[in-house]
């Protein structure tokens, strides 16, 4: 085996389980949305996703009540995903533009912004309700 060092490794691999986590199902369903509906109805089970790491930066959460409209978050957002609504002095976050750097949560003087663990944000419409936080 002097010149084929990979060969024993391949033999071992035959008896190992795959390293990949089969999320959301072991085999790709014909329609992912259809599959998720089935999961909702209790007809299928979801292979759970890999756990998010500590202090993961997911979809942003905004507490409207504590906001003072200082617009500091608008100033540090690298992707200009935060908009200050002039009439109400509150912000609107376009999650489809957000790059999840968590800088707005750092600068917010009232601590009204928080990164959640939500990461399943794929959507067909970038202006869908799911992707606008206000």
């Amino acid at each position, binding site marked *: 085996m002097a010149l*084929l060092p990979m060969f024993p490794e391949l033999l071992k691999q035959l008896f190992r389980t795959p390293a990949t986590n089969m999320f959301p199902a072991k085999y790709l369903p014909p329609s992912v949305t259809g599959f998720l509906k089935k999961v909702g109805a209790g007809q299928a089970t979801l292979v759970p996703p890999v756990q998010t790491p500590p202090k993961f930066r997911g979809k942003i959460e905004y507490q409207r009540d504590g906001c003072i409209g200082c617009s500091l978050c608008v100033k540090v957002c690298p992707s200009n995903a935060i908009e200050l609504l002039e009439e109400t002095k509150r912000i609107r976050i376009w999650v489809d533009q957000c790059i999840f750097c968590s800088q707005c949560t750092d600068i917010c003087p009232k601590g009204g912004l928080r990164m959640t663990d939500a990461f399943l944000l794929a959507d067909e419409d970038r202006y869908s309700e799911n992707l606008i936080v206000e």
Partner: protein
Amino acid sequence: MSEEKKSPYIIPIGPTHPALKEPVMFTFRMDGEVIRDVDFAPGQTHRGIEWMGMRRNPVQIVHLTDRICGICGVSHTLAFSRAVEQVAGIEVPERADYIRTIIAEFERIQSHLLWAGVAAHELGFDSLLHLTWRVREQSMDVIENLTGNRVNYALVQVGGVRRDIVPEQHRIIEDCLSTYEGLLGKLLDLFLHDKTIAMRCRNVGLLSKDDALKLCTVGPTARASGVNVDLRQDYPYCAYGDLDVRAILPDQHLGETRGDVYDRIVVRLLEVGQSCGIVRQCLSEMPSGEITAEPKLAKLLAICKKARGEAIGRVEAPRGECFHYVVMEGKEAPTAWKVKASSYSNLMSWIPMLRGEQIADIPIVVASIDPCLSCTDRVAVVRSGSRSILTKDDLHRLSVEKTRRLQQ
């Protein structure tokens, strides 16, 4: 029948081609199977990041620089923030320097393992690709644990870092390092003692030391040709001044330097082991203290706004020297920002490497410098390249003209 000239003939490969990971246009002048001459034109993935940066403040740009490259996310951020820190006169706390070093070395580990997998794939050795990428996952998990993300770490900020390394994380890092140190012997064995890899990589894609110096190559590409350059030893930044980092050259392991693809594999794999050692040393010597010079972002913005001057930030990225030039003139946004990714210096070495090789060697020789074209593509001026774009209107006009011509 007319006698047609058969040689040399031209093979274009690119701008997008299954053998290339990123878009670049190659034109080969072939003589049979042998490459006589080669020319290439990058510039297909220009994204205008510098333009975007010049309309933002440094605190925003830091996270934009994460996105210049998907693999060396921290190198660009580090180079940029080091440039801004020099302009604004911000002194980075020592602990932040150590954390920056640790994350930069983890990035080197994962980048070199990624490259080793790609190299195996280009040779058609896909089982080795899958093995390398599986072991790479562990370093990605550590990076995820330290920074919160697998790529686009958003860890470095102007003036320091945003997250500390807590004692619980030491164990996770230590686990990963000992796995890699155990694995390194195996990886070296799998790559260097394999007959196929030796046949395909020994004396292929040769770059002599002279050429490497003349073409100003950097990083592992230069070191594999025997050029003793490594910013971590020649121009220590962050915590590297306290550490004893020496450039890894192939003759330390093999006893000779040939400057071929095989040597590039050796250098990169040995650097994985070196990086493990650096991380371990950093962890044990890391001083306690602040992790950022200015924790209040609003104050940091005010400091950056007042800053005037120009500076250069240099960092040894996994692919070689990464270079950021920043000019600030007391405004929110920098007046000028120039990025030179490491691949920019390495691309020209393709020409001497590819000359005299065969078509089948193109993928591995092209991959051997670990090109990262999306990082490289800034504004490219192609001399004597007369290019024009035909829009739909132009095509319509030409079509109408042709019909008119035929009607006459």
